[in-house]
């Protein structure tokens, strides 16, 4: 465990080092700016929540394609209740509405044995239609400014890490050491400072809670008996039943927690990332959450990494298309590393493929000065796709994931 965290720290340092080298070469200062880091965090949070939500559901053996729909319900509830009763109640309502969507999924898949994907897709479609219908009613009733937009929601307070990143604690204004450091543009040191400042400064309290969900879910799933039982329902439900585990209960718990987290993710989009609910606000983040879950190989830490990758790419494309151009250089470097690795392992064919791709990307980087806008918007998706296909991992999904379970399977 100790070794693992050391290695993690080393990898993070290495990544920042590479980024600062690229920044120096290309002059794309947004690659490691405070704004990028803080936007990346903000954009990652809903995906982390959806991914961890998916984790609970799939670890209990229920495939949850319906995450998207549950997020939509959460976002709408966040806007509806949040604009009326304040952001905190809005978040509570988001969790509740997500869980209601999950309850439908749970009843369909667990109690009635409906195919998990069919039920999940149905929930996505119904959720989108339902919130549009409700929004229209509210608009016609005169309480909403438009059929696709809620009134504004007051924002939740932010704070920073004391001493390093500013913020206010009981009237005491903390100094902000990292910002001036970041503005010096010293190689590496300023980059580290900027990223740290972005990740720890001006944080919404909800963001802190959301990020805490990651270690918390690891603790619950791997260190408590509830977690062991929940996972057993997804790995070997019949064995679990033979040992007196209530498999139905575990699956219901998994799916409901999943819906609550996805709903919170949706509410976060409406209340923290924006200041009102808007139609299509979720925009596929439930699916990206599922992708992060797969990327993370059904483990919380991996989900965080996957969501962070997507969030970073998304933040870059929103802020600065020149930085995206610089990102191509990063791809070239990663591919070059793969060539080196494959040659050492003696895999000459894949080394050759990587080398060709690396050369192609290098040519692309040198030949094109400004990326077309459509390509820039696609960046987060392309980045996710690339990393997932390059990280040749052994995917291990829960053994009984997606398989309908009937009590009395022991017979």
């Amino acid at each position, binding site marked *: 465990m100790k070794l693992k965290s050391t290695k993690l720290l080393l990898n993070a340092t290495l990544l920042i080092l590479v980024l600062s080298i690229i920044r120096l070469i290309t002059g794309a200062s947004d690659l490691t700016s405070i704004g990028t880091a803080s936007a990346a965090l903000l954009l990652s949070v809903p995906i982390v929540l959806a991914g961890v939500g998916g984790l609970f559901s799939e670890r209990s053996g229920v495939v949850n394609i319906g995450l998207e729909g549950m997020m939509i319900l959460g976002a709408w509830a966040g806007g509806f209740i949040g604009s009326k009763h304040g952001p905190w109640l809005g978040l509570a309502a988001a969790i509740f509405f997500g869980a209601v969507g999950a309850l439908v999924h749970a009843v369909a898949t667990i109690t009635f044995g409906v195919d998990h994907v069919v039920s999940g897709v149905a929930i996505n479609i119904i959720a989108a239609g339902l919130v549009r219908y409700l929004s229209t009613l509210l608009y016609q009733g005169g309480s909403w400014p438009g059929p696709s937009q809620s009134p504004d929601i007051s924002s939740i307070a932010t704070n920073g890490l004391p001493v390093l990143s500013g913020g206010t604690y009981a009237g005491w204004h903390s100094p902000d050491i990292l910002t001036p450091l970041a503005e010096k543009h010293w190689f590496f040191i300023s980059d580290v400072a900027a990223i740290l400042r972005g990740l720890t400064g001006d944080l919404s309290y909800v963001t802190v809670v959301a990020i805490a969900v990651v270690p918390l879910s690891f603790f619950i799933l791997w260190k408590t*008996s509830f977690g062991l039982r929940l996972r057993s329902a997804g790995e*070997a439900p*019949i064995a*679990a039943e033979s040992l*007196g585990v209530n498999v139905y209960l575990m699956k219901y718990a998994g799916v409901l927690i999943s819906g609550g987290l996805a709903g919170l993710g949706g509410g976060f989009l409406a209340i923290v990332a924006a200041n009102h609910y808007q139609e299509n606000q979720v925009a596929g983040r439930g699916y990206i959450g599922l992708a992060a879950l797969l990327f993370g190989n059904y483990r919380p830490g991996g989900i965080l990494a996957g969501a962070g990758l997507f969030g970073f790419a998304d933040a870059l494309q929103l802020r600065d298309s020149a930085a995206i151009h610089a990102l191509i250089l990063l791809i070239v470097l990663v591919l070059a590393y793969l060539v080196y690795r494959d040659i050492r392992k003696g895999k000459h064919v894949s080394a050759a493929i990587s080398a060709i791709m690396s050369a192609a990307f290098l040519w692309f980087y040198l030949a094109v000065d400004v990326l077309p806008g459509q390509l820039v918007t696609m960046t987060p998706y392309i980045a996710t796709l690339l990393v997932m296909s390059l990280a040749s991992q052994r995917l291990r999904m829960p053994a009984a994931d997606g398989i309908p379970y009937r009590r009395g399977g*022991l017979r």
Partner: protein
Amino acid sequence: MSVAVELRHISKRFPGVIANKDVSMKVETGTVHALVGENGAGKSTVMKILYGMQRPDGGEILVNGQAVNFKNPNDAIDASIGMVHQHFMLADNFTVLENIILGAEPKHGITIDFAAARKKVADMSAAYGLDVDPDILVEELGVGQRQRVEILKVLYRGARILIFDEPTAVLVPQEVDDLFNALKGLRAEGMAIIFISHKLDEVLRVADDVTVVRAGSTVAEVKSKDVTARQLAELMVGSELPQPTTHGDTRRPEITLALKDVSIPTKSGSRDLISHISFDLHAGEVIGIAGVEGNGQAELVEAIMGLREYTGQIEFKGENIDHFTVAHRHDAGIGLIPEDRQRQGLMMASPLWENRILGHQRSKPVMRGFVLDKKATIADTRTIMQEFDVRAPGPQTLAAALSGGNQQKFIVGREMSKAPSLLVASHPTRGVDVGAQAAIWEELRRAREKGMAVVLISADLEELIGMSDRLLVMLRGAITAQLDPQKTTPEQLGSAMTGAK
């Protein structure tokens, strides 16, 4: 000694089937008590009732003298009953320790106390000689070790009455010895062990008492030292044991199957899978192929059926069939009883009438012109089930719901229904109970008298000697000896199979 478990007149009915009519047994502490019976006699059902997985329709269960009423396995576990399932109930992606403590986790505040659990498991491992690493993933374990985990799981929950459901079915002989040593250790600790099996030699080796069930009822309770395997088998079947024998010479002059120098070379250039096999098989003759498994018998079957490329010639009824496809060979009148009935012979998740179609999908009664004749197929399936005594509710029953013996009888019936001129029978009675075995032998005898030729492959030496007119011994892909079954003992055949002189 006290009575640990007593079952009195247990009965249980499922839709269409009576699993238990009247089962009684009495198990004393500090003994190994075997429950034997044919497949489908109701052994497993009665044990599921004792373990709370199913509720009995009638009868009483007494544990340590107290009447009990189990609603689910938890109740049985609380009454210190544990079950070691035949199909292991383990999560592959969990560690051994996680599998053992699941459902009964020691707690330390709100977290699981893994240290305490590890210590307890280590202590149990040492006490009963059930050695296994607690922190390894179960998927990395072999079958014998998995069974140890199952036993530890049960002991961890404080079981004093252990049910073993056909524990040796999946083990190799060395692992069986280890298991039996562990059972003796548990018995010495004063536990009551119920051992379900139909392997009588094992039962006599390990059990103190034996209860025999037949067709859902207890028919005998005996001490194992007072009986022989043969007597037990006769109790199980309810009549004298059938013998694999044929009467007289039914061989006809015409040659049904002729192999001329048939070989299957390997691509890598190493030893041929089968090499230079030649023999003539007459109508009405049974030729037995003896050999230790993996010496080319399976490949020989595949060559005859056209499932594999070969060199040399195969003639069927005087006609060269080398260019025939598999379907063509079936249609010409070659029937096959495959060695693995579940993988090669049946679609387990389909009803019997659909299984009836397999291999007959071009001819009557399955087809009428270009259309599938479902009605006629179902009617014909029913006829097969009656003629071959396939015990199942009807043609709509799924193949998976049948016992192994009934599945095998159905396959034999299906192949016989087209009255083949040649039957390739690969282990036709492997893993089936005595009753089904007798029925299958009888069918082979009858068909032989009508002039069918049979290639019989079996690991059961008595079956080979009793049923065959001629024996060929295969070793490393070649025929190394030809023996007259009339003058051969199983011992002689066994040594010929291993190549000993």
